[in-house]
């Protein structure tokens, strides 16, 4: 099994990776084509604006209601799942979650794992953790399988291999699987099907994510189109589901609008091919299904975001990917540029809580704040507002308590001093007049190099006369002509 290349090591920063991505014409084309199509599909899936907005409001309400009683719901979920025969585990860190999963596999003397698509397992870097312990963990979603085979990470949370075209997949299958090269997508998918079917048959343990965990009934709901999720959760004798603590909702009926919002926002589908509702292991008289089902509930910084009423809205996310599909920055640089598990606008607001702002200091600023992400979010997360909040947390003085771990990563005394000066100039009329007088007369002395601004723009030069002067002159001229001011 190939070890994945840590994307973060390609270049050290978002800026560096963005420069590389922008220079890659093929990559930009692959993303442009894909995102244009996904935007159109979403628009077509919500033809009635009133219905869409009502549904978004309801989605927001359901998530906010669940978060307003999250600890109680988690306890209810645990009790109900336990009653149904599911083992529930809790993990504060990804290391702890990996240890739990590994212990379950070890207790069954397992060596082969098949995994349905799960972003939480990406957070955990579960594949690498298990590979280091001689356990093969194979991705079974076609897109995930393709990126795993190429030693990469997903570049989109719904379409992990969206950065590749069919020619690239064909070459990859040819070199890694030894099959004849073909650019027929159907044939490529059948090659994947045959290879993975053997793995489903042999696997000791199946791992999956969870889209919604329903406290009322103790049910794990999982959406998918391929059937690999069903395979992973049904064929192996043990099923381990991993999920973030924010995925719990109160009642079964709550998933009706959420499911509709999720599938329509993600791929423009009225519903996915398969919706799995798993409420327990195989019963004594049943002929198939796993004998054991486990759920690992992971925190990994989520309780940190939860502690702040504004940042808590981050946890509304239902992982549809619509914000990245509509983001002008993501569309141009692609998912790998972010260097983290969650790319795009949502990644920029969830990642700081998981790894600390000091690890991703550029993320809150890698946005034009155009507002598209907030406008399409199916559960109305005010992403631009949260990005602005994280920008503030990013430049906090180290003397102030950090609200987000690693906060204050971009604090600069120079910048702070400059803003203080700016404030002083703009709040003291005499000082402002003096500044204006000097700026209009000495404008030519403005430096030609103004840091990143002048990389792509010419340096601004103050006009020889200020707007105030011009307005005054205009009014005076008018009065001289006898006009009313």
């Amino acid at each position: 099994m190939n070890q994945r290349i840590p994307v973060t090591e390609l270049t050290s920063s978002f800026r560096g990776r963005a420069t590389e991505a922008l220079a890659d014409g093929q990559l930009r084309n692959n993303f442009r084509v894909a995102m244009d199509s996904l935007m159109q599909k979403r628009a077509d899936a919500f033809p009635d604006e009133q219905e869409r907005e009502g549904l978004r409001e309801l989605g927001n309400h359901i998530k906010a209601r669940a978060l307003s009683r999250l600890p109680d719901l988690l306890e209810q979920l645990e009790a109900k799942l336990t009653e149904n025969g599911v083992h529930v585990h809790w993990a504060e860190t990804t290391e702890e979650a990996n240890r739990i999963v590994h212990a379950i596999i070890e207790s069954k003397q397992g060596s082969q794992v098949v995994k349905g698509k799960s972003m939480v397992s990406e957070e955990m870097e579960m594949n690498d953790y298990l590979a280091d312990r001689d356990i093969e963990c194979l991705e079974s979603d076609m897109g995930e399988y393709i990126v795993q085979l190429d030693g990469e990470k997903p570049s989109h949370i719904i379409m992990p291999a969206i950065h590749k075209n069919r020619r690239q997949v064909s070459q990859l299958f040819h070199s890694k699987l030894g099959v004849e090269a073909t650019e027929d997508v159907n044939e490529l998918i059948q090659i994947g099907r045959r290879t993975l079917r053997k793995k489903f048959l042999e696997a000791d343990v199946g791992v999956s994510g969870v889209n919604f965990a329903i406290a009322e009934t103790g049910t794990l709901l999982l959406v998918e189109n391929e059937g690999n999720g069903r395979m992973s959760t049904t064929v192996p004798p043990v099923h381990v589901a991993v999920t973030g603590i924010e995925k719990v909702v109160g009642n079964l009926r709550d998933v009706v609008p959420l499911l509709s919002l999720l599938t329509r926002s993600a791929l423009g589908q009225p519903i996915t091919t398969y919706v799995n509702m798993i409420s327990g292991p195989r019963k004594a008289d049943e002929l198939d299904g796993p004998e054991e089902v486990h759920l690992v509930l992971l925190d990994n910084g989520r309780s940190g975001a939860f502690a702040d009423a504004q940042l808590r809205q981050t946890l509304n996310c239902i992982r549809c990917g619509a914000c990245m599909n509509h983001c002008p920055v993501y569309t141009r640089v692609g998912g790998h540029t972010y260097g983290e598990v969650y790319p795009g606008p949502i990644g920029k607001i969830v990642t700081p809580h998981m790894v600390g702002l000091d690890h991703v200091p550029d993320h809150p600023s890698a946005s034009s704040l155009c507002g598209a992400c907030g406008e399409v979010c199916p559960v109305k997360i005010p992403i631009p507002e949260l990005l602005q909040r994280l920008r503030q947390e990013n430049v906090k003085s180290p003397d102030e308590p950090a609200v987000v771990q690693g906060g204050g990563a971009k604090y600069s005394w120079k910048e702070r001093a400059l803003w203080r000066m700016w404030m002083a100039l703009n709040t003291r009329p005499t000082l402002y007049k003096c500044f204006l007088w000097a700026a209009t007369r000495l404008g030519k002395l403005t430096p030609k190099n103004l840091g990143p601004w002048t990389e792509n723009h010419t340096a601004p030069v103050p006009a020889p006369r200020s707007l105030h002067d011009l307005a005054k002159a205009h009014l005076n001229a008018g009065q001289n002509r006898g006009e009313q001011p």
Partner: protein
Amino acid sequence: MSARDNILSKLRAGLEGTTPRPDQFDEELVTQPWQYAPEDRIERLRSLMEAVHTEVHTLAAANWPAKVQELLENRRLANLLYAPGTGHGQQLAEFWAEADAEQNLLAYDRPIEEWKEELFWQVDASITGTAGAIAATGSLVLWPDRHEPRLMSLLPPLHIALLKASEIEDNLYTMMEKQNWSAGLPTNLLLVSGPSKTADIEQVLAYGAHGPKELVVLILEDA
């Protein structure tokens, strides 16, 4: 303190002084736009399912076993997996015996472990019942149990599903309420809305990713 206690106490500290939000679920929003006249339900279901490569036939209840045989013959398939413990399974077996059909009937009557290889590689088709369908999204409801196990609708390349026309509901919410799902669910309830598919390569749709390559729905009009 355990991870569980730590997580819960951190979350509780974050909620100190707040009150849980009231439940203002809006039933109308998830039902009203998704209502159809009874005679339109089948059409809505059919058009959505056909749009994702599902073959849909409407026929009289008495004729379905013969239709199944015809489907297998047309595709030159050798065998069919069925559930002998169900009413429709028994009906099928009776027809098969009388019709002296060529295709082998395979009964799913043993635990998966006893014939996993065979189920994975040597079964051409399967037939299952459904617990109804949802017109709004074009979805079948499968309620696997000891008689009709989960893998029947997943492993064979062709899955044939029997659906009573009278059991098609307007939308998911109505279905949940009518069948009282919150009172008790099976170990793995499924909504199935077409054959297995993927668009992971260049967003080009390809069918038969991991599950059935073909789904055929037989709607029994007088049942």
